[in-house]
């Protein structure tokens, strides 16, 4: 029979006997026969004498005995209610021959005794606690005392309880519980040493873990006493508990009870006794996991700090914890590196939560870790320690974000991490920086940031990791890389200095860092920098214009001042020559504005900003021609907006060069051309010759497109380049003849598209353009062209195959004719449109 089967057998047998005895006992109770009841109850309780059962199984048995014992308790109470004095029963029970049954019965009667009020509660409790001492077998003793604890829990002479007064006071109550606690802990510890060799040690430990709750219940009892206040806890309760903890010299007991103390007593008590508690921590056995104890105390207090309460200012909790940790580190040699890091991490977490303003605390914890790490001789850290350092560095980010860079020790610690882990921390740093929403407004701040996030900005110098290779099939890595670069790109929009000169320095410095990122990174990181630069250019331009305005005003003021000075001198001369001379009126006093109040022109000129932009986009051009072309076009519009004709021309020509040299895909060409036309139309300050050169080139590109319909549409679109602005605009550009030429050329190309039957569609599109210029009063676009084109479309549209294409064309054509009809009716346009024949 295996040990387990044996256990089941023993338990079944014992339970069976208990039930039997209980059955007859209940009959005796029904017969109101006290003596028989007691004798049968004793028989039943005798089963608890066994030492064959494991604690777990003993518990099962104990529970079934207790079930029936309740009937006995009730019986005692009913006897008492019927007039039997409890003391009589109490005396009678004493005659029970066996110790264990006698004590259980005594406790049962004791409970009724206290309730009856026949004797003071404290005396009965004292009596009971003295008597139970004679059971020293651990398991039996623990359960017996548990029964005592349970029976007495609502009968303690606690403050406010009905037993207070004659029955005693809270002191009697807690002394009773403390004594029970102390004895139970002793029994519990003794269980560990109940014979057996090393092989049974583990088994014993397991059994003890099963029983710990019995010991802990006493602490819960203590925490429930109303009469125990902070002073009492500090002066009596806690010292007594801790004395037991330290003196028992037992690892399991110490670990469990310290944790119990933290969990069961209120925050206020802990705050009042933190120092005592922590001092005890340093006295615990080496194998006790002090870190988890400290951590749960710190968690408890920080939850309190975060909630309604506050840690009192006169309590230097951080120092206390730190002293404790320092002492532990000094005295304990069995702590490995990861464990030390964990300790510091939890202390730092505590500081972050309870002392949000105290960055020095955070820095201190980081510093402690740095010095521990620097003391380790090994070249590289083990995996667990790396994970701990990564954790340590990630935790402060959520609350401090960029502020971590002000912590001297932070960057120092980063260097201990392998590149890959630094990259992880860097990602969190960037995320929390973005989330915090603060602005990156100084070069120094950014230098620090870039240093910390180097793994995101460039590849490791030692290895070529970082940006994944193109042929690498690892899509997840590529997606992660993209995500990281997007985060870095977003950072650019947080670079916001109100001073344009500082902003320029920031952007220049950023470019230097981004520039080292390699081809894959710059595609993500440089475009936002270009747009930030363009934004800056507009701001600098405004500052320059404002400065000029101010200078002009100053100049006028100075001239006026000089004139008045002249007049003054003349008047003085006149007065000297003729004492009778009366000046015509007082002279105005010109007050020149204070030198420091005059806004200074920017140190970095707008021109310089554009030069900077030119350099960035040029650097990207080879790797990203398509994108760079668009960025050149954007820059051209901005430069034109700032009235830099030559610079705008330069940007345009760079775009054109890219178009010619790099864009080979016909779809890409078409898209680029559309943008080039739009851009040219958005610029209004080109020199005429420059503009002519640009639009001629553009039209040539249009005519050279591969597909005929594309050619046709682009040539049509190019017609706009020759008709810019209305006649009233100062810089309008009207070349009616070239417009007509474009449209006629487009018609010709469209005519050649008959094979693909795209021609009718193109005709209608061109008709719309004729109409457009007709409405804009292009003198060469005459009604006859419109009439002719309409006739042409009418001729071709019927021969179109029925289908989607035809429906589409018909819709567009119908709308166009409807538009003409509308114009024929409207008062203003009636005259002009009447000659068009539909």
């Amino acid at each position, binding site marked *: 029979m295996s040990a387990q089967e044996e256990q089941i057998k023993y338990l079944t047998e014992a339970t069976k006997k208990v039930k039997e005895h209980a059955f007859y006992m209940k009959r005796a109770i029904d017969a109101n026969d006290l003596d028989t009841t007691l004798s049968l109850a004793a028989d039943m309780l005798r089963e608890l004498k066994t030492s064959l059962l494991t604690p777990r199984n003993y518990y099962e048995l104990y529970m079934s005995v207790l079930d029936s014992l309740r009937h006995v308790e009730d019986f005692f109470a009913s006897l008492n209610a019927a007039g039997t004095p409890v003391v009589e029963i109490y005396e009678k029970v004493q005659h029970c021959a066996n110790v264990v049954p006698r004590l259980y019965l005594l406790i049962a009667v004791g409970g009724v005794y206290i309730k009856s009020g026949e004797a003071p509660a404290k005396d009965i409790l004292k009596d009971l606690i003295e008597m139970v001492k004679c059971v020293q077998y651990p398991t039996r003793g623990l359960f017996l005392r548990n029964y005592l604890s349970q029976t007495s829990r609502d009968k303690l002479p606690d403050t406010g309880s009905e037993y207070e007064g004659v029955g005693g006071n809270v002191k009697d109550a807690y002394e009773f519980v403390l004594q029970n606690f102390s004895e139970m802990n002793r029994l519990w510890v003794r269980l560990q040493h109940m014979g057996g060799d090393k092989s049974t040690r583990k088994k014993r430990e397991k059994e003890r873990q099963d029983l710990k709750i019995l010991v802990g219940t006493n602490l819960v009892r203590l925490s429930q006493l109303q009469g125990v206040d902070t002073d009492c806890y500090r002066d009596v309760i806690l010292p007594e508990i801790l004395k037991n903890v330290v003196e028992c010299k037992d690892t399991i007991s110490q670990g469990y009870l310290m944790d119990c103390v933290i969990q069961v007593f209120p925050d206020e008590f802990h705050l009042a006794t933190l120092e005592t508690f922590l001092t005890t921590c340093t006295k615990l056995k080496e194998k006790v996991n002090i870190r988890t104890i400290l951590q749960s105390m710190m968690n408890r207090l920080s939850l309190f700090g975060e909630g309604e309460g506050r840690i009192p200012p006169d309590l230097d909790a951080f120092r206390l914890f730190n002293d404790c940790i320092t002492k532990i580190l000094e005295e304990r040699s069995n702590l490995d590196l990861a464990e030390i890091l964990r300790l510091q991490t939890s202390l730092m977490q505590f500081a972050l939560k309870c002392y949000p303003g105290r960055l020095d605390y955070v820095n201190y914890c980081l510093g402690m870790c740095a010095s521990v790490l620097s003391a380790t001789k090994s070249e590289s850290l083990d995996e667990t320690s790396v994970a701990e350092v990564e954790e340590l560095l990630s935790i402060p980010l959520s609350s401090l974000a960029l502020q971590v860079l002000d912590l001297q020790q932070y960057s120092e610690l980063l260097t201990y991490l392998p590149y890959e882990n630094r990259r992880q921390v860097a990602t969190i740093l960037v995320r929390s920086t973005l989330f915090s929403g603060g602005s990156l407004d100084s070069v120094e701040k950014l230098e620090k940031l870039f240093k910390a996030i180097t793994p995101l900005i460039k590849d490791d110098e030692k290895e070529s990791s970082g940006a994944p290779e193109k042929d690498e099939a690892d899509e997840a890595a590529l997606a992660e890389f993209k995500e990281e670069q*997007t985060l870095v790109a977003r950072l650019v929009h947080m670079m916001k200095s109100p001073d344009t000169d500082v902003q320029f320095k920031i952007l220049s410095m950023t470019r230097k860092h981004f520039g080292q990122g390699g081809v894959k990174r710059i595609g993500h990181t440089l475009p936002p920098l270009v747009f930030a630069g363009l934004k800056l250019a507009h701001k600098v331009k405004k500052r320059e214009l404002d400065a000029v305005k101010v200078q002009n005003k100053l100049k006028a003021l100075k001239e006026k001042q000089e004139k008045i000075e002249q007049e003054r001198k003349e008047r003085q001369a006149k007065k000297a020559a003729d004492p009778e001379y009366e000046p015509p009126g007082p002279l105005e006093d010109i007050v020149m504005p204070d030198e420091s109040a005059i806004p200074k022109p920017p140190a970095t000129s707008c021109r310089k900003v554009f030069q900077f932009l030119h350099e960035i986009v040029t650097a990207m051009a080879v790797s990203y021609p398509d994108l760079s072309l*668009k960025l050149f076009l954007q820059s051209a519009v*901005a430069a034109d907006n700032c009235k830099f004709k030559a610079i705008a021309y330069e940007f345009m020509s760079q775009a054109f060069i890219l178009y010619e040299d790099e864009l080979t895909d016909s779809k890409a060409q078409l898209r680029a051309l559309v*943008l080039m036309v*739009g851009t040219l*139309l958005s610029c209004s300050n080109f020199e005429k010759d420059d503009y002519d050169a640009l639009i001629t080139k553009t039209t040539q590109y249009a005519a050279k497109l591969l597909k005929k319909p594309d050619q046709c549409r682009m040539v049509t679109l190019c017609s706009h380049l020759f008709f810019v602005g209305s006649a009233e605009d100062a810089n309008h550009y009207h070349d009616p003849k070239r417009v007509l030429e474009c449209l006629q050329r487009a018609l010709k190309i469209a005519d050649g598209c008959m094979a693909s039957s795209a021609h009718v569609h193109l005709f209608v599109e061109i008709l719309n353009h004729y109409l*457009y210029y007709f409405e804009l009063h292009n003198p060469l676009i005459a009604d006859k062209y419109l009439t002719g084109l309409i006739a042409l479309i009418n001729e071709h549209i019927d021969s179109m195959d029925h289908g989607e294409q035809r429906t589409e064309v018909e819709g567009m054509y119908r*709308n166009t004719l409807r538009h003409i009809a509308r114009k024929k009716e409207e008062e203003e346009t009636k005259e002009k449109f009447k000659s068009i024949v539909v």
Partner: protein
Amino acid sequence: MANFGELVLVIGDLHMPQRAADIPAKFKKMLVPNKMQHVLCTGNLTTRESHDMLRNLAPNVHVVRGDFDDQQNLPEQKTVMIGAFKIGLLHGHQVVPWGSLSALAMKARALDCDILISGHTHESAVTRKDGIWYINPGSVTGAYSPTGGGDVPSFILLAVQGEKVVCYCYKYNEAKDSVEVSKTEFSKGE
């Protein structure tokens, strides 16, 4: 709850992360799933994340290709029927001169639509010309535009009920950190 008919979000030119870090928080709170039936986007989402965000907002999402969108599979233009309205949608950089209503009118005739939605200028507007309504939602991130538009984040919400449309134009005022709304109502064939 009042019946708004079908709610259509008109949004575009996000340009994240190239020109803006994010959509204003005040807007984000308004742009939540299960409120709108349609999203019409004028393009320049530029990233997958932005696409996913829109897809989360409504069951019907229509996106056209902006000048800075790399996704080749996005259409240049499309039409969508909502209520009694045929709505044309395109980014707008293809129509020159940019933002010109006369030029857009040609597009509206080509797409045979009652409402033409376009972006690109980063300036929101609701305009009527020759019986067609032109709607530009602006840039929801207030993305930079070299022509001087931008700066003011905006989007438009259409409540379409049969032949009627109520057009709510939302603008974000950064200085006040507040959202301003203006309203335009019109009916088909008006």
